[in-house]
C-alpha cells in the first residue's frame, strides 16, 4: 500500500509539472481559449473494455476501438438506451459525446459478459 501511494503521488507530481509548463509556454493563453472537447479512448482487447470505467468531464467524447478479431458492440444498459453502436468489426470505432453528468453503464450486446461504465462529472 505504501509503495502504491508513493507511486501515485509521484505520478500526480508529473502531471502537475506538465500543467505548469503548459501554462508558462507562449501557447498557454491560446490553449485556454480553445473549446476543444476532451476525448477519451477506450480500447477493446480480449473481450474486455479498457479501462472498464472511465471518469470524464461533461462534454467529453469517448471513442471505443475494437482491437479484437471478433466483432463487438457498445450498448447502453439504461432504459431508454443512452447510446448504441452498430457492430464494430476489427479496428472500427464508435464515438459518443457525453453532454450530461451521470453514470452510464454499457455492455457488448454480442458478448454480454463485457461490461463497462462511463462516469460523467
Amino acid at each position, binding site marked *: 500500500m505504501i509503495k502504491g501511494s508513493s507511486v501515485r503521488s509521484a505520478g500526480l507530481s508529473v502531471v502537475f509539472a506538465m500543467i505548469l509548463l503548459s501554462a508558462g509556454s507562449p501557447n498557454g493563453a491560446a490553449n485556454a481559449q480553445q473549446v476543444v472537447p476532451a476525448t477519451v479512448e477506450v480500447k477493446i482487447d480480449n*473481450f474486455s473494455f479498457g479501462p472498464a470505467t472511465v471518469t470524464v468531464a461533461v462534454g467529453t467524447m469517448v471513442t471505443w476501438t475494437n482491437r*479484437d478479431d471478433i466483432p463487438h458492440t457498445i450498448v447502453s444498459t439504461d432504459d431508454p438506451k443512452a447510446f448504441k453502436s452498430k457492430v464494430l468489426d*476489427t479496428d472500427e470505432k464508435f464515438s459518443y459525446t457525453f453532454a450530461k453528468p451521470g453514470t452510464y453503464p454499457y455492455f457488448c450486446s*454480442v*458478448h454480454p*459478459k463485457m461490461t463497462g461504465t462511463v462516469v460523467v462529472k
Partner: protein
Amino acid sequence: MRKTRQDEILHDHNGDEIDRRGFLQCMAWAGTGALCVMQGGVLKSFSMSRVAKMDAKKMTGELSFVQISDSHMGFNKPANPDVGRTLKAAVDKINGLIKPPEFLIHTGDISHLSKPEEFDTVDQILKGASAKEVFYVPGEHDVLNDDGKQYLERYGKGTKGAGWYSFDKKGVHFMGLVNVLNLKAGGLGTLGREQLEWMEDDVKHLKSSTPIVVFAHIPLWSVYPEWGWGTEESAQGLAYLKKFGSVTVLNGHIHQTMQKVEGNVTFHTAMSTAFPQPAPGKAASPGPMKVPAEQLKSVLGITEVNHVQGQHALAVVDSTLG
C-alpha cells in the same frame, strides 16, 4: 467411456440406468462435423474424417443427420483466411458418407457479420451437400444490428417467435431454439419467457418414450459462464423434458467439442468449420485461436476431439445443469 474405434465413442455408464434403458448416447465429435445415427433408440456419432474406412453397417441406422456449426462466413483473419474453403471441406465429407444423412442441422453463426452476402455464400456452399434439407438456428453473429430480422426473413419460415420451431423425423422430436437475442449486460444466452412457454407446450402431447433432440447455438448447460458459455434459463427449459427417457442437446458457439451426461440428458457441443477457440479459461479471452496454416485442419479437430480433449474439457467445466 469406452473407446471402441478410433473415431467412435460409446458411453458406457456402468452402474447407472442410462445404457440399460437405451437412452440416446453420446457422440464422438471430430473434423468439421459429425454424423449422427439412431440405432434402436441409441444415438451414435462418428467423425467424418474416417467414416470412409468404417464398417457401413455401423453407420446405417433408423435416422442419420449431420450437425455443422459456426461457419462464420466473412471471417478472414488468422487462423483461417478462407472459411469458405473449410466449409466446402465439411460438405465434401458429408458427401463422402456411405449412408447419406437425411438432413443437416446448422447450430448458428452461419455468418460472421450478418451480411447478406455471407448468408448467400453459405447457402450456396451447402447446396453442394447431398442432404438438401438444412435446419438452422441463429448464432449471435447472425442477428447483429437488426435483432434478427434478416435471419427470420431468410430462415424463419414456419417458425415461432424469434425463430424457434420443432419437427419430427422418424419418431424423433427435434426442437430448434433461439438463445442469442435480447442478451442482458453481464448475462448469458437467454431463451425468454415466450420461448419457454412454447417449449412446455410443444412437448406436452409427446409420449415419454419419444427421443428428443434439442439444438441451439449457445450451450444449454453451464460450460464456462465467465466467457458467457451458457444459457440463463436452460435448467427451466430442460425441466420440461424431464419425463423423456432420452434427450440429446446439440450446441455450437464454443468451437470445440464437449460432452456431458446428466440424468436423461446428453449434451454435446460441435466444432466450428471456421476456427478453433481456446478451452475454457485457457486464454485471455474466447477469441479465435491462431494456429499455423498447416495445422488448421487438425485444430479444427479431426483427431483431437474424441478422446483426451473432450474428456478434459468436461472435467474443466464441472458444472451442473442447474
